């Protein structure tokens, strides 16, 4: 019964939205009647509430184990803790789509109601938001109904969700990520409203500034969480595989980062307006494209939901339509938007312009990597796989160029060419310092890889440039943009740690029996397999190995496990990780061989903690940047 009520609420929400939309389009060309707008917003708020209540009821159904609902039966189980029962809602297509819509409604209602009542763009923004929400809501109700029942009686108990998904980080990864993507719907709708309105005297950047900051933070944290989870849960020792679905998650983030920079220039300096508007459209279009890729199953990936051409077609059509319409309106309005002042070479704006160019090139490269296998197979039948080797090769030079530009632009000025004296005073010491560091590094460490060293160089020039800048600004008691400093230092650390990680990390596959020990190499003097414990936990059996690793004089205890879950008989491997500031000792237990011995996979991963740190720094930088009341 409750399921039907919830379903009814969702349907009513859709209906209300349609009515509101009609109300605004039919009377579109009449004089904007403020009562009409107030009514529209009220109706809109009502439909958002209907969506919230509908979802709230759905959570209730999940918590109370209503296994007559097909989706809940497939993805939840009575044995699950409440937290995971709720998380199971967004573990697959229908439920996560529902969550997406809830967040759309949440962000939209907060934004619309927060707009000043005399804001000239209010009505158009409302229309855009309604179009987006309606598009997804109809998609949900027509093709992916989360309320469908198993008739006549449902099932006795749910199928357990994948034990790999029963993890706190993974449970909150989708909501945080979605809050990020959906948050950029605000900027999209506002940009579209601005373009449609055609009055280019309106100052629009300030209104979406704070909202975009928050959305960016959610997006960054969401992607980092996914990466962190992959590292400690999946057992392969990596944190990013350039998997198609990882890639489509990164695309909006790149556009969003470019957008944030461009917005800054646009509102401070009245320049790069066209870029900012374009990027605002791009973020959302790329999110839509991502949703299509993930939910249509068109590309094989560990992440993708089931293959369903009907859903794929709807999402493709919807994204295509939205993107096309927005780009057409954008293209139509561009001539009127061009700023009166050209970008001066060597000014801060020119660096931000280059940043946009590099970001768009990165987006293009990833897009190419994702689409190329499909193109090739479609036209010649040949299959090809594109993975880390390709992306690393393409991104190394881009990162290098970006880092050099960041280094130079640290001292750049708005609307005029950078002072040559500053240029020489900071660039030359930076280069000298970085080259020395790399030389010292290379003489200590014999490994070499061109791509890794490009990355190390890139990271270092950013860090040293900021180091010099901070010192000289403190001495001269000049203003330092803290947000920018933290964020870019974070970026430099990211480049550095990724590169060092790829250069220095290594792995060893080991075979030994209980009680035996083995010397691995110069630094790992002893790997001792003490004993094996077998025990039973709540819903799984565990084999746990007790291992002592003596590395660089320090003895570390690790307990990798193999688990077998009772519901589906699934076997998982729990990695044992000993994390220190500079390296992680990462151990997996493999299989037992015929002679009773066990195989182990030992990885030494360098600078992993620094990767997480860099993400935290970038978020911190953004938070600090947000504090500035007005640019």
């Amino acid at each position, binding site marked *: 019964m409750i399921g039907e009520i919830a379903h009814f609420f969702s349907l009513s929400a859709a209906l209300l939205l349609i009515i509101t939309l009609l109300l605004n389009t039919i009377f579109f060309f009449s004089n904007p009647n403020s009562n009409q707008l107030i009514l529209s917003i009220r109706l809109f708020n009502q439909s958002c509430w209907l969506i919230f209540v509908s979802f709230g009821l759905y959570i209730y159904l999940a918590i109370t184990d209503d296994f007559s609902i097909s989706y809940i039966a497939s993805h939840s189980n009575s044995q699950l803790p409440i937290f995971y029962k709720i998380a199971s809602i967004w573990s697959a297509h229908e439920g996560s789509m529902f969550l997406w819509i809830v967040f759309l409604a949440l962000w939209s209602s907060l934004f619309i109601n927060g707009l000043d009542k005399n804001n000239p763009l209010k009505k158009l923004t409302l229309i855009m938001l309604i179009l987006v929400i309606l598009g997804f809501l109809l998609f949900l109700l027509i093709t992916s109904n989360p309320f469908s029942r198993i008739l006549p009686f449902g099932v006795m108990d749910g199928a357990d969700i994948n034990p790999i998904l029963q993890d706190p980080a993974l449970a909150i990864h989708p909501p945080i990520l979605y809050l990020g993507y959906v948050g950029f719907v605000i900027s999209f709708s506002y940009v579209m409203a601005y373009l449609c309105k055609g009055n280019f005297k309106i100052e629009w950047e300030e209104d979406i500034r704070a909202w975009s900051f928050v959305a960016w933070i959610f997006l960054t944290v969401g992607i980092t969480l996914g990466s962190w989870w992959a590292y400690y849960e*999946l*057992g*392969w020792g*990596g944190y990013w*595989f350039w998997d*198609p679905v990882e890639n489509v998650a990164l695309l909006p983030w790149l556009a969003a980062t470019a957008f944030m920079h461009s917005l800054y220039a646009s509102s401070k300096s009245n*320049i*790069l*307006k066209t*870029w900012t508007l374009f990027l605002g459209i791009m973020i959302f279009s790329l999110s839509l494209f991502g949703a299509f890729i993930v939910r249509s199953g068109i590309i*094989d*990936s*560990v992440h993708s939901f089931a293959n369903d051409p009907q859903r794929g077609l709807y999402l493709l059509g919807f994204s295509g339509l939205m993107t096309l319409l927005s780009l057409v309106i954008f293209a139509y309005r561009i001539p009127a938007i*061009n*700023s009166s002042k*050209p*970008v001066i070479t060597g000014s801060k704006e020119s660096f931000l*312009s280059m940043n946009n*160019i590099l970001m*768009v*090139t990165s987006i*293009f*490269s990833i897009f*190419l990597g994702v689409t*190329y*296998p499909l193109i090739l197979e479609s036209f*010649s039948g*040949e*299959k*090809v*796989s*594109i*993975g*880390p*080797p*390709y992306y690393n*090769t*393409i991104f190394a030079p*881009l990162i290098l160029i970006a880092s050099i530009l960041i280094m130079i632009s640290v001292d750049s000025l708005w609307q005029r060419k950078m002072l040559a004296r500053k240029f020489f005073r900071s660039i030359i010491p930076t280069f000298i310092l970085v080259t020395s560091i790399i030389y010292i590094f290379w003489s200590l460490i014999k*490994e070499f890889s061109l791509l890794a060293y490009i990355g190390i160089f890139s990271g270092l020039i950013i860090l040293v440039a900021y180091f010099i800048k901070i010192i000289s600004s403190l001495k001269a008691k000049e203003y330092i943009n803290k947000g920018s400093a933290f964020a870019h230092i974070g970026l430099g650390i990211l480049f550095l740690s990724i590169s060092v990680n790829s250069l220095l990390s*290594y*792995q*060893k*596959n*080991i*075979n*030994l*029996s*209980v009680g*035996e020990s*083995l010397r*691995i190499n110069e630094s790992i003097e002893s790997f001792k397999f003490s004993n094996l414990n077998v025990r039973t936990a709540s819903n799984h059996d565990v084999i746990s190995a007790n291992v002592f690793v003596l590395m660089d004089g320090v003895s570390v205890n690790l307990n990798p496990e193999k688990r077998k879950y009772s519901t589906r008989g699934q076997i998982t491997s729990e990695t044992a990780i000993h994390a220190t500031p500079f390296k992680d000792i990462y151990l997996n237990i*493999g*299989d*037992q061989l*015929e*002679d*009773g*011995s066990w*195989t182990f996979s030992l990885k030494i991963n360098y600078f992993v903690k620094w990767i997480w740190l860099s993400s935290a720094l970038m978020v911190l930088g953004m938070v600090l940047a947000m504090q500035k009341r007005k640019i």
Partner: protein
Amino acid sequence: MFLIALTSSAELIYQFEDQQQEDRFYRLINETRCPKCTSGSIASSNAPVSRDLKQKIYELILAGTSDEEIKNYISERFGASSSYKPAVKGMNYFLWFGPFIFLSLIILIFYFNKRV
């Protein structure tokens, strides 16, 4: 069933003559796609065919085969899609040089139009 080993089995599974061979091995297995999995390299896969492939690459390295020859060996059997690094030939030139061409085009466009 835990059997008691009569002789010591403690050893590194893949033992090489020098560090360079070992580095080549781990690089190759990370670049080779698991033929059976939806996604992922043979390094991170425990599927039987992945294990066979790792063993084969190990043997080939010890026998002195070059990286190029090993990749050809694998793609003859498991197809061109078995490597995560597409060959630089034919249509793939668009793939490898596309980003660079794109970047150059965009820089040119904006060099001539500075009012954005």
